[in-house]
């Protein structure tokens, strides 16, 4: 990944709290269409990782196949990345985290990669609450194969060709909550502040984070009649909360009114502040969250915000009770039992 110079650069550039500049989080030049929502999301990821002072080398980028799944090549060149096969990123991500529990797994997928071919692995990943940030760059179509409907396309949504979608969409957020993900939200590639804030909280969370980010496909699904166009989202967006994030390493703290604002203390001590825009919406209440999502459907809203967060549930890694050190680099002394063990096993079989 030669594009990022490792040597020191021009006099005192702005750095984050681990002393890296934003350039240390940059990726290769995008080959996606100009204006593609996915590019904006890559920018937000860079931003959030920089602001949170995440060591790029700790991050593992994982993806399936699609325009969205290509995007890991366009941010964070100093992180390992695995562009795997279509719809199977969840299993690859799971394997990677088993091998090295210290990694920060960032999974990038598309609505086709997740909701169509990938829904099976998606369901089981959510169920395990594996520590991973799972981002769906959701444009309602298969961009890379030229714009067929995916399983998140809304009823009645229309393609340029005039074809109408007559199947109900899969609400990946509803599913994720139903199945056990512990941090679930929806955002919009065009909403810088909301998206970066959510991403920072996502980085602070331990467990499965599932973010459905509506990300318009300017080439195949940004026209009149599409429900995933920039215009449609702007016109129909309903935001649950106004959010702000205070990372654990920042001393200064702002006051907030407990009546109107939910304060979520994340695993690393950061706090996510959600100022309610809807009376008594409680993001820690599973059933209410699912109920609200179904209503949004019936009302035709594009509902955004943090729908559900649970910082208590054990993650898949906790359940496995593995040694703290990554399995990947355990010494032979720990991975190959001694001769006496073999002898004992043989004795039992005599």
């Amino acid at each position, binding site marked *: 990944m030669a594009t990022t110079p490792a040597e020191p650069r021009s006099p005192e550039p702005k750095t984050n709290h681990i002393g890296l500049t934003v350039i240390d989080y940059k990726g290769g030049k995008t080959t996606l269409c100009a204006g593609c929502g996915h590019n904006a999301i890559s920018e937000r990821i860079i931003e959030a990782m920089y602001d949170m002072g995440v060591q790029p080398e700790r991050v593992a980028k994982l993806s399936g196949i699609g325009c969205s799944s290509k995007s890991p090549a366009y941010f964070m060149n100093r*992180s390992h990345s695995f562009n795997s096969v279509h719809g199977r990123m969840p299993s690859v991500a799971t394997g990677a985290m088993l091998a090295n529990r210290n990694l920060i797994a960032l999974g990038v997928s598309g609505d086709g990669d997740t909701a169509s071919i990938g829904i099976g692995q998606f369901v089981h990943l959510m169920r395990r609450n594996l520590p991973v940030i799972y981002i769906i760059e959701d444009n309602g179509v298969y961009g890379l194969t030229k714009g067929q409907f995916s399983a998140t396309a809304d009823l009645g949504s229309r393609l340029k060709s005039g074809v109408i979608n007559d199947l109900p969409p899969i609400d990946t957020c509803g599913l994720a909550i139903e199945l056990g993900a512990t941090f679930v939200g929806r955002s919009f590639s065009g909403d810088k502040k909301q998206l970066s804030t959510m991403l920072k909280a996502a980085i602070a969370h331990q467990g499965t984070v599932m973010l459905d980010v509506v990300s318009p496909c300017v080439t195949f699904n940004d026209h009149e009649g599409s429900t995933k166009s920039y215009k449609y989202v702007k016109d129909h967006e309903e935001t649950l909360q106004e959010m702000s994030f205070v990372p654990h390493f920042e001393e200064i703290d702002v006051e907030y009114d407990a009546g109107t604002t939910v304060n979520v203390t994340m695993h690393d001590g950061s706090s996510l502040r959600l100022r309610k825009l809807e009376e008594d919406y409680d993001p820690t209440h599973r059933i209410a969250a699912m109920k609200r999502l179904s209503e949004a459907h019936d009302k035709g809203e594009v509902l955004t915000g943090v729908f559900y967060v649970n910082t208590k549930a054990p993650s898949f890694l906790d359940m496995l009770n593995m040694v703290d050190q990554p399995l990947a680099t355990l010494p032979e002394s720990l991975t190959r039992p001694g001769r006496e063990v073999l002898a004992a096993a043989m004795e039992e079989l005599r």
Partner: protein
Amino acid sequence: MATTDVAPQGTGGQLGRKRIVNDMSIQVATVNGSGSQSSNTVLLRAIFQMGVPVSGKNLFPSNIAGLPTWYTIRANKDGYIGRKKEIDFLVAMNAETAQDDVMSLAPGASVLYDEPLALEKLRHDLVFYSVPYDKLVATVCPEAKLRKLVKNMVYVGVVAQLLTIDMGEVEKAIRKQFATKVKAANLNLAAAQAGFDYAKASLEKRGVFYIERMNETAGKIIIDGNSAAALGCMFAGCTVVTWYPITPSSSLVETMIEYMKEYRIGPDGKATFAIVQAEDELAAIGMVIGAGWAGARSMTATAGPGISLMSEFAGLAYYAEIPGVIWDIQRVGPSTGLPTRTSQGDILATAFLSHGDTKHIMLIPCSAAECFSMASDAFNLAEQFQTLVFVMSDLDLGMNNWMSDPFEYPTTPIKRGKVLDKADLEKLGGFARYKDLDGDGVGYRTLPGTNHPAAAYFTRGSGHNDKSNYSERPDDYENNMERLNRKFETVRSFVPRPEILKGTNAKIGIIAYGTSHWGIIESRDQLRAEYSIETDYLRLRAYPFTREVHEFIEQHDRVYVVEQNRDAQMLSLLKLDLKPELITRLRSISHLDGLPLDARSVTDELSTMEGK
């Protein structure tokens, strides 16, 4: 060995009154779920403890309870522990199949049956013994609901008496079987004793079969191939196991879970491994690949249907060059096929698994000991060559009981292959993931999490250059594919070499692999004894083929490739690899009925093909 010892086998019974010692197969016909497993094991062990070589094969239906099952114990002084076609001693416990079972016996065989079945009327050329099981059980087992369970132990006692098996060994075997459960042990012992006493008192020995003490099993163990593989993987330093249950592979992982829980807990009381039951085989191999990429020694175990489902991911691992070990415990296909029958039918599909130009390494164990040792080979090769390694076992090896020498502790340290760490990168400054620096076709990799700004690279299943950057350039693609070919050529000299057994200046060669081995070694003696056909024998242990394989074929006029599938799959791979001139020498003997290969079938077919 003296040919006279061997000759009688084929024609067992006909010998009439000649004593046949330590050379017989005992078949117990029962229904699955009736708990006959423990009595079968006790009988097996008792013979084993008397120093007589044995094997135990379970022929069971693909359901859970209530259908016919046959357990066959073979005792053979010459160490032939493959399947024997003929049954010499039948223990008929299953009313449903008793008739067929009896009718299919060769003359002279013995039959032990439950009195009410009244089988003696069926034939006059067999030796019949009847036992009033229920009466006997009632006496030793007051609790009616336990009787069904101990009933089976009665025949062990009867058989012991009739075949002159020492009751002391039977007791020892029972105590081992029920270990801590003393009450159960005593109850079963009583049942066996009752059988023994009854036989002594009321049955007149007329059969020709005897078990006598010898000293061929001292220090040996009895184990199934899947348990051996589980142990092997544990000692190979495996850290991540993913699986989705499927017969006949499930027991490999289930046994491994037991062993790992016992022996792979770190100092802090935490696991030095992760074992995950995946939602299906696509996820299982996906996890193996993700873990292999991130530096774990990862594996999964499956059977044919799972192999098919892993096709797409297998191509990714080949092309993106990611290590992983996959155990294929082969069963009879195509499709669901016969899930509880054995086969070598996945060879061709696995060698070329996935679309595009792909090739995979296969290791092929023939014994429990090799299941153990090849586990280490598999993980080492996978990491050295950054690719998948398939270990092609089968149901006969994986699920049946095999006598074996105790396993040897791995002699070589764990080989992690070409992995650059922080220190290396500080020296080198950077690296090119797919560059062939050493001329062996193998590049250097780094593991995610390596704390150096130049450590990262981008892994993809799409076109890439040697820096692992995306590329659609024709030359980048072609160079990369040619390098992958070079890598595969390099593998040839690193995989396990074949085992070669020489006859006395033989013109004829036999090539076989896996569990066919046991039928072959016996058949070679039959061929010599009965047809004076001398053969040399090469047992393949891996694909790609090593030099020795080509040489072996060059050295023989005719080479018979024996395998357990319809389409002569290994012979096909040989055809693709051999100098065309040599191909004319190959002949196919394939065995297709789902039963373990027996010597007699090979002997008959080969001798016929040799015009004898």
